[in-house]
């Protein structure tokens, strides 16, 4: 039996990669909908975003 998917193979690869990539894009977003935002969770999110807080020099713009 030939396993070659022919011309449809490229489209199946594109569809599979697109679906999985979108799942990774929304996965954390969806999961966090079920997680209470405690102080430690907020600290984790803050570091994950590597973001500035109150000392941002751009805040007054």
């Amino acid at each position, binding site marked *: 039996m030939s396993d070659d998917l022919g011309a449809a193979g490229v489209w199946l690869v594109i569809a599979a990669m697109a679906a*999985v990539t979108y799942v990774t894009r929304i996965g954390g977003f969806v999961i966090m909908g079920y997680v209470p935002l405690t102080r430690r969770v907020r600290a984790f999110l803050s570091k994950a975003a590597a973001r500035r807080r109150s000392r941002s020099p751009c805040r007054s713009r």
Partner: protein
Amino acid sequence: MSAIDSATDKPYWSWAGLRLGMRRGLTITPGVMVFGLVVGAAAERHGLSAFENIAMNLLVYSGIAQLVALEIWPKTITWGAVASFALLAGILGARMVLMGVAIRPWFGRLPKWQSYPLLFYLTDASWLISMRYHAEGGRDPAVYLGATISITGGWMAAVIAGYSLGGFVADPQRYGVDLVMPVFFAAMLVPLWTGRRRAYGWIVAGAVAVAVQHFVDGWWFIVAGSLAGSLAGAFLDAERA
């Protein structure tokens, strides 16, 4: 209302935010376009049609995953190959799970019909631009949309041009093109410097990523470094609080 001076945490949409996002997105677009040229050329080299190239970039829209996939593109595509490419997309996209986690407190307040389509085009660059804006006090998701429009427009133009140019951009290392994206992300970190303590998370992330890259094959170093840095930073902040 300006795009930045929102007094509350409630998200809102504005044209000013869209323009701000587009302007900020344009600062990274030249670097993204260089990368896009390489991806487009790789698609041409491995026999994808022009239409398949455009579809892949519109639907997958993950430069690094596409580039790696094209590097290992087989002559014949089987179900096993499809599964392998899906796994590859999952591993290389795993870092975006963390990005989605971080953006939840902001986009989670939008209606689902807005937040889920917006996340379809989530990229490192648009996320970084948006999270910086959010850290400045902004809450307008139009900034994210504007940055995404600039970056995606530049990306699509570049992959089409790269596909047309083909072999002219086949070897990115020869011209130092492969350094463009790392240099951009390093430059974006500079304004985030707020003291040595905050850098501990970065140092842990870098050290773990380098160690994992040395000992583990594949792209797990991206996931391991991100997680380690975030956890280290979280515990340092919790100790301080």
